[in-house]
């Protein structure tokens, strides 16, 4: 894998800010439907990003992602609907709720539980949260879910997908940039080291427990914020939005994009959010085609779509990124 030169790194930085600037113009070419799909891509980007840093970068087989997502969504909906907190303010708070979920999920990893055992425990955590959404009826609305109150932002209704888009875009760009910076820092190198060999990493006086804890918490924060965006995106939070199907879809996005890659998280989210919409033209066959296309991508590109771009130019090589062994 060829590493980028200093010039290419500068170009990458320009590109990072140029793309969101161009994305500001997206509403000029969308209708309510396509805008809704684009908004969904931004949310999926954050969910995939939060997932990939735990599963891809840290190398922990943890599936609590959907739990963080639900915690963020319900946190935002409860604050907005029950306490009248403006939705914009609920976004960072939902992130903190998600981070708290990340802290809880990390407890199992910190106790030395790994591999399939960690997978099962974190899956159980997700199901436990779903049970809570279903049965804490006064707070969550049970199976009826919780509607988001109608709000305006600078005089424009927040039911409008275009207005939501600008907020979603700002939050997504900030969190993607923050995550990319985190992974490109000394901390990111430590994360990668833990994935490769936890014992050897600890022998270098790197506090592996703290690395694991912070990665889970950051993952929970990112996905919790995505949950708050999702609550406004759908306008009504239901328990079934946070089940196994969502988890499988997120996992597919991580793999199709490229495990442990920030760019891969974005690509996986964009492609797999758009794909089912293209497949609408084949009612009853969508699931089959979706499965076939995902399988074909993974067979052709085992390291995901991001690997294709990395092959095209070193600009797309992320600092400290190493393909999972």
């Amino acid at each position, binding site marked *: 894998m060829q590493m980028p030169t200093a010039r290419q790194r500068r170009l990458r930085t320009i590109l990072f800010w140029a793309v969101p600037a161009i994305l*500001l*113009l997206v*509403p*000029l070419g*969308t*209708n*309510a*439907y*396509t*805008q*809704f*799909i684009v908004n*969904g891509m931004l949310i999926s980007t954050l969910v995939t990003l939060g997932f990939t840093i735990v599963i891809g970068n840290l190398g922990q087989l943890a599936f609590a992602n959907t739990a963080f997502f639900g915690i963020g969504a319900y946190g935002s909906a409860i604050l907005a609907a029950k306490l009248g907190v403006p939705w914009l303010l609920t976004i960072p708070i939902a992130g903190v709720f998600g981070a708290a979920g990340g802290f809880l999920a990390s407890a199992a990893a910190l106790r030395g539980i790994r591999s399939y055992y960690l997978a099962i425990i974190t899956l159980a955590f997700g199901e436990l949260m779903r049970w809570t959404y*279903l*049965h804490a*009826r006064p707070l969550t609305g*049970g*199976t*009826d*879910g919780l*509607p988001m109150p*109608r709000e305006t932002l*600078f005089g*424009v*209704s927040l*039911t*409008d*997908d*275009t*207005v939501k888009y*600008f907020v979603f875009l700002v939050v997504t760009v900030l969190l993607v940039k923050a995550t990319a910076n985190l992974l490109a820092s000394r901390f990111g190198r430590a994360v990668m080291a833990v994935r490769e060999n936890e014992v050897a990493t600890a022998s270098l006086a790197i506090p592996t427990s703290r690395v694991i804890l912070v990665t889970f918490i950051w993952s929970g924060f990112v996905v919790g914020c995505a949950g708050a965006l999702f609550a406004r*995106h*759908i*306008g*009504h939070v*239901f328990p*079934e*939005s946070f089940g196994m*199907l969502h988890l499988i879809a997120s996992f597919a996005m991580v793999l199709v994009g490229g495990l442990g890659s920030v760019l891969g998280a974005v690509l996986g989210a964009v492609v797999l959010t758009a794909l*089912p*919409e293209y497949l*609408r033209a084949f*009612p*009853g066959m*969508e*699931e089959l085609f979706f499965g076939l296309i995902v399988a074909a991508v993974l067979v052709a590109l085992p390291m995901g779509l991001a690997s294709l771009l990395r092959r095209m130019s070193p600009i797309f090589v992320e600092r400290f990124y190493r393909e999972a062994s």
Partner: protein
Amino acid sequence: MRKITALFAMLAFTAAPAFAQDAGWETQGLTDDSITIGVMGPFSGNASSYSKAMVGMMAYYQKVNDDGGVHGRKLVAVQEDTACDSAKGLAAAKKLISQDQVFMLQGNSCSGVAVALRPVVEESGIPWIVAQAVSDSISVPLARNIFHGVPTGSANGRAMASFVLSKPDTKNVAIIEHSNDWAHSYSDPAKEYLKEQGITPSLELTMERGQTDATAQVLQLREAKPDFIIAALYEAETAIFLKDLKKYGLGDIPVMGTAGTDLENTLKRTGDFDTVKNYFVIHSYVDNLDGPKMKKWADMIKKYYPDEELSTFSFVSIGSAEALVSALEKIGPDLTRSKLIAALEEVRDFDTGILSDPITWTPEDHQGVKGSAVAGFVDEKPAVLKAWGQPY
């Protein structure tokens, strides 16, 4: 702060085209020879079996088209999949409204999806006839453009209690239900109706989903000796409960079930007629599915969908499709969305010939079907009843 305001002003300017309302909105989705109708349903996913609920409506559209359409216009259905998922359902609705630009919407099987769609459809102003989903919160509080064309959860719950109290000398009523909102959507209005009649349930029991034994509940019922039991349980649990009732000698107590169970399917599950001989269920139709009054509808579906295996769901949307066509005919050729909404609000006691209760939509109330018949075994044969001992 000034910079932030300027930024948002710029963003609002960028977004301006999206807010603009088309001038031809009233007649969007109409041509001289067609009316496009957006039909949403779960055509994929775990709940795809509910897409059967679209079949009757689609067959009825085709029948109307074969008969020449409405004022020369054919009904053209544009189908979109919701997969019974709120995000996918919202995408489907937005596609139909803003991209396909349909004239109106009809359908939707999953209540959760329909509830999530409500703000979007309400804001769009385009007429929507809810033809399958039953949650009351889809159409209450009133939204000017949303009409419910099937009995809602509250209508069914009240119909259950009404039937129970129609049995002479019924004073002692017990309730058994799942601890979920689906069950509450039947039991809460049933309890409300009982309360209005001065009756408080003697026993309120819970049987959780997936429970394979109802002995504990049945023993409590044996103590309470109810005259009637209201059971808001899914079909599998209903079968277990009925078997245990018989096992402990309570098989003669009548049990009133929801629309979520089918009489004959329950018999198939128990495999013993004695367990279901006193079981009654909500049945929204004028006759048994294979009865003479349903034959013309069954024949219509079979004509257009020869492979369709008919079930209770196959017929559920026909009534509201009839009401729609009747309203379209009354408006005449000069059709607009506002005229359709006004015409639907004029529908009074519309006898569909298939739903057990008529459809009435007023400007104040868009929940069109206020009651439901009941199905039960009479002389060992399934029968549709208005009240205890009264055939429909």
